[in-house]
């Protein structure tokens, strides 16, 4: 087990290096010169050259990358071109805000999806299965920014139950789910975020549990006299590795790809930071954000892989 875990962590290193190369070079593949946004329109060629040297843009790309990597390893992701603050600070604060709603969303989605998917799998073709399948189809296919706007109209505008956008005055520095005056700002974005994972995980739970139920050993469980709840436990434990894999991917998407939701709710997370960085050509901020997000993705998948081996002993052989 530990040998496998150590191996798996080692395998993650080349992936992380690859990720950093892609992050770094992506920015240069995009058209346009990052310097353009920094220089005043009336700058002389000399001024431009000075700024170029100041930010290290004059060196060969490989050197720029190695410099960037060496600094990144010490936690220095450079200075944001727009705010002049360290990128690492901006990214960690945004990541904290995003994780607060993303993890809550994925947990809520996972619990609900497990219940729905299991009920559906045990009642294939019956009304309850059709309801669960419909919910999952709606979750996957309704655009989430639209869903967010609808929720805002209903809960914030019509019924005045929850705030429409933002994090409230206190929340943006130290967000906590435990304080209602902060948590209430997070509810609508969290619900909106949970929709797609709910749909995807429900569907995969349904198919994984249904697949398990068609196996011979389920007949043996029944032949042993076990009750339905015990059969459910066996079925879920067998389906769990597959469900976790899907859930890990979904959490990765939520952390990185929530630009639309965070924009609708004006939630100062990674998505909002990234969209700002793109629009203002804030290269260091963009590189830093993408790197942190990509590494989080690698880390989540590593954790899922390790959890899977704990649950299913057959995976260890791989």
């Amino acid at each position: 087990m530990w040998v496998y875990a150590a191996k798996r962590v080692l395998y993650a290193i080349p992936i992380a290096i690859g990720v950093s190369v892609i992050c770094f070079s992506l920015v240069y593949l995009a058209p346009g010169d990052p310097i353009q946004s920094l220089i005043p329109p009336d700058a002389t060629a000399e001024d431009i050259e000075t700024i170029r040297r100041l930010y290290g843009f004059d060196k060969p790309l490989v050197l720029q990358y190695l410099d960037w990597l060496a600094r990144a390893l010490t936690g220095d992701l450079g200075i944001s071109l727009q705010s002049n603050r360290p990128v690492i600070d901006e990214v960690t604060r945004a990541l904290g805000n995003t994780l607060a709603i993303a993890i809550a969303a994925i947990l809520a989605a996972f619990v609900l999806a497990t219940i729905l998917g299991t009920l559906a799998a045990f009642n294939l073709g019956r009304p309850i299965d059709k309801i669960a399948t419909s919910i999952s189809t709606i979750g996957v296919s309704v655009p989430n920014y639209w869903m967010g706007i609808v929720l805002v109209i209903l809960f914030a505008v019509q019924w005045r139950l929850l705030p429409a956008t933002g994090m409230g005055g206190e929340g943006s520095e130290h967000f906590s789910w435990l304080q209602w005056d902060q948590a209430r700002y997070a509810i609508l974005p969290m619900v909106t975020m949970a929709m797609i994972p709910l749909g995807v995980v429900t569907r995969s739970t349904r198919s994984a549990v249904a697949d398990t139920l068609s196996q011979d050993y389920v007949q043996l469980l029944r032949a042993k006299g076990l009750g339905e709840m015990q059969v459910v436990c066996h079925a879920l434990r067998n389906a769990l590795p597959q469900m976790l894999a899907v859930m890990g991917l979904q959490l990765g998407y939520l952390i990185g790809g929530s630009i639309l939701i965070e924009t609708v709710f004006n939630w100062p997370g990674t998505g909002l930071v990234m969209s700002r960085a793109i629009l203002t050509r804030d290269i260091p901020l963009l590189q830093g954000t993408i790197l942190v997000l990509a590494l989080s993705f690698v880390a989540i998948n590593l954790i899922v892989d390790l959890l899977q081996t704990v649950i299913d002993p057959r995976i260890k052989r791989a």
Partner: protein
Amino acid sequence: MTPAKTTAPGAAAPRQPQAPLLDVSGLKVDFISRAGRTQAVRDLSFTLEAGEVLCILGESGSGKSVTLRALMRLLPEGRSEIAGRVDFLGENVLTLPRRALNDLRGAGISMIFQEPMTALDPVYTIGDQIAETVMRHTGASREAAMARALELIELVRIPSPERRLRAYPHELSGGLRQRAMIAVALSCYPKLLLADEPTTALDATVQVQVLILLRQLQQDLGMGTIFVTHDLGVAAQIADKIAVMYAGRIVEYGSAEEVLLAPAHPYTRGMLASTVSGQPRDRDLEAIPGSPPDLRALPRGCAFAPRCPRATDLCQREEPGLTPSGAFGHLLCHHAQPSPRNPAPADRAPGELVAGQ
């Protein structure tokens, strides 16, 4: 009461003071799908006493495994219909409420499945899977149940039992997995053991070992056993009684000796004639021509008639009824030839004389 009940065993066997271990009468299983109704098992009757071994013989699709599952109501509900009676120690299993049924499964009646590769849960250890059954039926603590699991693993002679207790199914060979499944089945000393081709999926040498083990455990523990197989050799080794199934019905039922040495039904005869052992080397094996009928569209008369060398117009027209035969058994044939050992000696009960005519 079904007609089967009144004609078959009633006349021959002296009335038992106690209910037999298992008394199946008029058992009928239909599978229901959109395509229609499949009559998998029709009008099945037999009895089993404690400590007896009944072999159900038949080719694939004859309904033998379905019969076994029906006895424990393991068939998918909603897609199958079971009718008739299955009396286990005088109580009808088919009408038991859910809870009582679960209490019976794994405790009074246990089952061994054909495929040791897929019948054990891959993500639980062998010990857990045995202990789970023990805990479910005896209310024992986890420690006590694990200790019992270890005893059982020793009982089925799995080498290095302590290590195997913590092993997962994929870490064991097929033979050891089948032994582990036997340990699960025996965990609560069942009175009735149902074995669905327990040796078919194993290598030939392992088959013999598992068969010997099962036979010995069956005798030591005095379990009534129903052994489903298509292997005549297996049946000859362990059976007290044999029921031969064809197209969902028992076509010949009697003591192992009667059925194997003096088969009266043309299907049984054909099956015995097509075995490899005892045949001259240079001659082709005899085979029964044709293939089993489609259970969704059974012929009007005898289901075996299209393949039967003795079939007449009567067979095409009319399905035969049960005719008592032997000491307690019955036959399903218009033209059953009483074999040389069978015909009516003076001490035969009147019921069988009818069969011989």
